[in-house]
C-alpha cells in the first residue's frame, strides 16, 4: 500500500529490532470464546507484509479459531482486528468484498466444492469477481494448477477422485486464483508425505518471492517452520507467548516451547539447521 504506515505501539508480535515494516494484519486484545470456554484471552499479533508467519500451538489451543476469527467466520467478544489497516468491524459490504478479494484461504480439509471439477473450483473466485473470457479463465486455472505442481489432466476430475495431497494443492490453487496479497494456510502440510510437504514449503516460498505474498500459516510441521517461515508466533493460554524468528523460539524458556523445539523430533532439525549455517 502506498499510504504511510501509522506507527503502532505494538506490545507483542514485533520482532526485536525489526524495521518499521508495514503491518498487514493487526490483532489487538482479542477475546474469543464459546459458551463458558474462553479460547483467546487478550491476544495481540502483528503480521508484516511479505513475510511467512508460522503460527504454532498445542492442539486445541485455538490456532484455527484465530484464523477463522480474522476471516470473520467466528464472532469475537472483544478486541480489534485490522487487515490492510482497515478495521474489519467497520467495513461497508463493498469494502468487505474488496478485502475478501485480497486474501485467499486454504482450509484444513481443503473445502473444495464437491459438485465442481478441479478446474471449476479454481475458477469460482475468478468467475465471481473478475470479468474474464472463458478461454483465459481456462488457461489461468491450468496455470495455477501447474504452479502448485499438478498436471493439467487433473483439471477435469472431481474432488472425490483426488488424493489428500492433491486436494491440498487444488485448494491452494483456488486460494491463489485471484493473486491475493495474503494467504491463510491452515495446516497446509498435514497429511502430506515428507517429500510432498517439502515441495509444498518450497512452493509457498517461491510464490511468496514472486508474488510478494504475505503468508499466515498455521502449522505443526517443524520442517515447515525451519525451512519456510520467516517468523514464528506461538500460542498458549489464549495469548501469543512468543513471536520472532526460529532463534527466538529456541531461546524461549516457556515449558511448552521448550518441549516443542527441543523435543526428540526437533533435535535433528536443529542440528541440520546448525550445520547448514
Amino acid at each position: 500500500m502506498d499510504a504511510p504506515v501509522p506507527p503502532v505501539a505494538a506490545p507483542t508480535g514485533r520482532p526485536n529490532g525489526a524495521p518499521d515494516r508495514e503491518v498487514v494484519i493487526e490483532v489487538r486484545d482479542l477475546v474469543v470464546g464459546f459458551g463458558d470456554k474462553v479460547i483467546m484471552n487478550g491476544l495481540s499479533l502483528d503480521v508484516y507484509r511479505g513475510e511467512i508467519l508460522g503460527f504454532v500451538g498445542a492442539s486445541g489451543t485455538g490456532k484455527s479459531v484465530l484464523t477463522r476469527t480474522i476471516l470473520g467466520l467466528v464472532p469475537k467478544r472483544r478486541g480489534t482486528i485490522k487487515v490492510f489497516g482497515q478495521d474489519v468491524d467497520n467495513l461497508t459490504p463493498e469494502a468487505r468484498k474488496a478485502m475478501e478479494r485480497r486474501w485467499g484461504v486454504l482450509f484444513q480439509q481443503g473445502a473444495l466444492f464437491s459438485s465442481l471439477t478441479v478446474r471449476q473450483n479454481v475458477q469460482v473466485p475468478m468467475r465471481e469477481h473478475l470479468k474474464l473470457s472463458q478461454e483465459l479463465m481456462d488457461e489461468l486455472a491450468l496455470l495455477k494448477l501447474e504452479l502448485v505442481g499438478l498436471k493439467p489432466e487433473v483439471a477435469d476430475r472431481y474432488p472425490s477422485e483426488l488424493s489428500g495431497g492433491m486436494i491440498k494443492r487444488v485448494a491452494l490453487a483456488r486460494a491463489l486464483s485471484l493473486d491475493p496479497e495474503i494467504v491463510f494456510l491452515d495446516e497446509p502440510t498435514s497429511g502430506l508425505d515428507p517429500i510432498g510437504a517439502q515441495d509444498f514449503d518450497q512452493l509457498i516460498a517461491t510464490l511468496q518471492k514472486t508474488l510478494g505474498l504475505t503468508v499466515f500459516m498455521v502449522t505443526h510441521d517443524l520442517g515447515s517452520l525451519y525451512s519456510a517461515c520467516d517468523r514464528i508466533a506461538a500460542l498458549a493460554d489464549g495469548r501469543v507467548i512468543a513471536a520472532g524468528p526460529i532463534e527466538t523460539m529456541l531461546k524461549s524458556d516457556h515449558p511448552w516451547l521448550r518441549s516443542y523445539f527441543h523435543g526428540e523430533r526437533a533435535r535433528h532439525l536443529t542440528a541440520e539447521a546448525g550445520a547448514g549455517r
Partner: protein
Amino acid sequence: MNRAVMDPVANVVVERNGAEARMRFIGRWTSDQAAAVEAGASKLTAEAQGAERVLLDLSAVERLDTLGAWVLDRARSEIVARGQEAGFVGLDEPKRILLHEVAYHEFGLKAPVQHSAVVDILSDVGGTVVGAGRDLVGGVSFLGSLVAAFGRMLVNPRRFRITSMVFHLEAVGFRSVPIITLISFLVGCIVAQQGIFQLRRFGATPFVVDLIGILTLRELGVLLTSIMIAGRSGSAFTAEIGSMKMREEIDALRVMGLDPIEVLVAPRILALIVALPILTFLSNLAGLFGGGVVSWIYGGISQEVFLGRLRSAIAFNTFMVGIIKAPFMALVIGMIACIEGMAVKGSAESLGRQVTSSVVKAIFMVIVVDGLFAMFFASINY
C-alpha cells in the same frame, strides 16, 4: 484505501520507431484489472503488426501478477509466432522471476470426445435399465445379508444392539406420533366431509361411517403412516448412513471386524418394524376420531349412532388388514433408505441425490406393495 478504485488502469502506449515498436506498459497489470488487461493485450498484438522488433517495456508497470504476466507472455508468443522479434525490457528481479515462472505454453489437453445426442439418449436409456436391474439384484442381496444378520442375532442375542434400537425407536416412533396423528385426524375429517357431502344426495349419509371405518383401517392409516415415515425417517437414515459412508466411518467399522449391517442397518430396520404397526394403530384411531368429529358436527350423526354403525361396519379383519401391512412397509422403507445410504459416494451432491432417490423410491414402493396386498387380500377374501 481501496486500490482498485484509486489506481490507474492497465494500459499500453505504443511508440513506433522505424521497424521497431516499443510498447510501454503502464498501470497495474493485475487480476483486479482483468478486463483492461485482456483488452490491452489484444491491442498490443494488433499494434505490433508490421514491426520487425517489438520491445515490451515493463519498467512503468506498477504491479504485475500471474494473470498479467500470463496475458503479456501469451501476447509476446503470439507476436513471435507471426515471425516478428519480441522481448521484454525494463524488468526488475521480481517481475523477471514471475515471468519465468508463468511462461506461456500450451497445456496439451485433449479436447473431450463429442457424442451425438441420439447415442447419448440411447446410452442413458440402456444405463437406466441396467441400473434398475442392479437395484433389484442389490435389494435382494441386501435382504439376504439382513436376514443373515438377524439369524446371527437370534443365535447369539448378545450381538443385538438394544441401545441403538431403542434410540431409533424413539427417533422414528415416539417423535413422529404428533405429526402422524395430526395428519391422520385431518385426513379423517376430510374424508368424512366429502363422504357426507356426496352421500347426502342419495339420502345415504349414515353410510359415511362405513366409508370412514373401512377406508381408514384398511388403507388410509397404514398408507399415511408409511408415506410420512418414508419422508421423515427414510431420509434421515439415508443421510446418516450416507454421511458415515462419505467420511469412511463405514470402512472403519468393517476393518474393526464389525458388520455395518449388524451395527447400523439392523437396529434401524427393527426399530421401523416395531414402530410402524404402533404408529399405524395410532393413525387409525386419529383418523376415526377425525371422521367421528366431522360426522357429528357436519353430518349430524351422534356419537352413539356413529359407534353403533362403526361396530357393525367393521370387523377384526378390517383392522388386521391394515396392521399386517405395516411391518412390510417398514421393511421396504428401511431397506431402501439403507441401500441408498450405502450407495453415497464421496461428494455432498451425491448425498443429496441419494436422499431424494431414497424418499421417492420408498414412497413408490409403499404404494406398489399396498396394491399387491390389496390384490392378495381380495383373492383370499379377507
